[in-house]
């Protein structure tokens, strides 16, 4: 499920190390274990944490891992994961966006009003909402890059302004807009026919395997060695197994919900963008060393503004999906735990707060962790207090792990 920038390969640029380097090798291996957890295999401890959480709640209530509850869980986390996906982009640049939750509420309100009061088609309303969210992100990105204001302050201010905008947009009397019976509402009540779900899943896995095989072939054509088993076969089987399990479980209840399909489509596209294209590489470069990136000719300001726009657009989409599920918008849209859960999802998933490290899949993994805790605690009838404490603590825990990994690994130099 992870995506790394390259296929693992053994490259022999130099001959075997001289005997003098043997002592260093031992230190090297201990450090490389830490580096692996901080880098390419960052998802392993997250999956372990998820396994523990699932095991715990299953012992408490056997319905937890039932297909009905898992369908509910996935539907619940789509909003968090979508917004967190945007957060991953800004975190990669060592920036932060605290306005995503308010932006999601404001954009969803705009969509709802356009569709309900102005009778726009659901599609147009959806696009208008996403465009508005992207525009808000772009403006913030521009202020951050052109004036050098810390993103923390810019987005904190924008958050309040956007919460104000929601109040202005909402109609005076009821203070809410119902989306019942609109195209927006059908978005989250639609489930894919089982066959179509299988086809889409197979297509995704095929694309993954194909891309990796291509990389292997190109590497071999250049006369360099690469292990097919490690680069294609093992990851391919793991991804296929995850895909088959997920679709089988969802199909045994109502089918794959449309929002879940949208989320996975986004993850696939952005995974490609971040790992396979120059733009993706530039994101990681700017996050690690903006000066070096600038001197290498990378348009740092542009990269940052694109990332903030993406965060805004994804926040808007997340907000609209939330409105679709809740059948309306109100003054409480985009408030509550939305912001904390989105940022927490990205960080728990493994995206570093210090920039330059992370993957778009972190948004999904982190949202699963947060969502499972919330869902599980609801299932066993825990109080809201317990939920808040658990979610807040796990965010702080994840950030602590991030700080330790950052300081103890090769990335230490990057954070100074």
């Amino acid at each position, binding site marked *: 499920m992870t995506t790394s*920038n*390259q296929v*693992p*390969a*053994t*490259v022999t*640029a*130099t001959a075997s*190390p001289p005997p003098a380097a043997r002592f260093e090798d031992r230190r090297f291996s201990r*450090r*490389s274990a830490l*580096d692996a957890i901080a*880098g390419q295999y960052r998802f392993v401890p997250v999956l372990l944490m998820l396994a523990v959480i699932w095991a715990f709640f299953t012992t408490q209530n056997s319905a937890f891992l039932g297909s009905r509850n898992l369908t509910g869980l996935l539907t619940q986390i789509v909003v968090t994961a979508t917004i967190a996906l945007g957060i991953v982009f800004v975190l990669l640049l060592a920036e932060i966006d605290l306005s995503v939750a308010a932006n999601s509420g404001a954009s969803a309100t705009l969509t709802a009003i356009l569709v309900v009061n102005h009778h726009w088609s659901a599609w147009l309303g959806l696009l208008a909402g996403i465009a508005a969210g992207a525009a808000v992100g772009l403006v913030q990105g521009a202020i951050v890059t052109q004036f050098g204001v810390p993103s923390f302050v810019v987005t904190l201010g924008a958050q309040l302004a956007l919460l104000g905008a929601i109040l202005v947009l909402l109609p005076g009397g009821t203070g809410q807009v119902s989306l019942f019976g609109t195209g927006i509402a059908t978005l989250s009540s639609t489930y894919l026919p089982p066959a179509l779900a299988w086809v889409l899943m197979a297509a995704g896995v095929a694309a993954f395997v194909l891309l990796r095989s291509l*990389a292997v072939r*190109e*590497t071999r*054509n*250049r*006369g*360099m060695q690469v292990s097919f088993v490690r680069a294609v076969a093992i990851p391919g089987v793991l991804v296929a197994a995850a895909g088959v399990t997920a679709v089988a479980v969802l199909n045994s209840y109502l089918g794959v919900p449309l929002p879940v399909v949208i989320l996975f489509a986004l993850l696939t596209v952005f995974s*490609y963008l971040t790992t*396979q*294209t*120059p*733009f993706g*590489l530039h994101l*990681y*470069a700017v*996050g*690690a*060393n903006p*000066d*070096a*990136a600038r*001197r*290498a*000719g*990378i348009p740092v300001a542009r990269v940052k503004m694109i990332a903030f726009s993406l965060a805004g657009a994804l926040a808007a989409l997340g907000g609209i999906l939330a409105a679709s599920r809740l059948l309306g918008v109100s003054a409480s849209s985009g408030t509550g735990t939305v912001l904390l859960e989105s940022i927490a999802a990205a960080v728990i998933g493994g995206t570093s707060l210090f920039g*330059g*490290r992370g993957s778009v899949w972190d948004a999904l993994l982190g949202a699963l962790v947060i969502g499972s805790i919330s869902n599980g605690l609801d299932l066993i009838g825990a109080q809201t207090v317990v939920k808040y404490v658990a979610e807040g603590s796990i965010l702080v825990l994840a950030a602590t792990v991030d700080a330790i990994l950052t300081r103890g690994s*090769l*990335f*230490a*130099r*990057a954070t100074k």
Partner: protein
Amino acid sequence: MSTATPTVTTATPLLELRQVVKLFGGVHALEGIDLTVGRGEIVAVVGDNGAGKSTLLKIISGLQPSDGGEILFDGKPVELRRPLDSTALGIETVYQDLALCDNLDTVQNLFLGREQARSLLCGARLRRADMEHRAQETIRRLGAKIPSLRTPVGRLSGGQRQSIAVCRSTLSDPRLVLMDEPTAALGVEQSAGVLNLIRRLRAEHGCAIVLISHALRDVLDVADRIVVLRLGGKVAEFDNTERTTSSDQLVAAITGISAP
């Protein structure tokens, strides 16, 4: 200085600075510096702190435009107002802080900002294999020792990181490479490795090198000519093609206290 000189290509130096001046708020950081760099020549610029070495380097690399004087490249007057002007002429700079991204591997760092990728219609996919192959070749040709091209460079040693920065400067087939304190942060053995790299760079690419350094021993070891700056002016120039200059001579010129 607009006399139309006949072009004598063999004798024209690669880079020529004539009476270059740099002011910082009325203070002369450089006052009327003349400097010539021949093709394939290694020129070292030495001097005490504040002598103007870095300013000179920044003028040639286009980071800080000069305030007066003339710069000729290949015998033709040029304007170096932005780093892009210099790179367009084939001037590459290896900065003292190396400008590497620790989270990226050697290949990604070598091609940073000039990645090879397919067209947008073909998905803009990076040509990873091609870049890796070219990186291998470059590293082998310069004799640099990098354990793995796929290790994030944050994990490599200072000498290896310096090597990567030097290798990166050669990717565009430069005609002149500027180096800012290439051995300042390195131990004895690693310094020797980098000096070797500098010699190989000249031998393999035939490009000229201007390096500024505090390490007089390294300078005497590798440079063909040594230019001494003091308080923004050029005070001495030693021909070191035969490696005959002594460090006493250099120290005397740098400090202005004549040798006994």
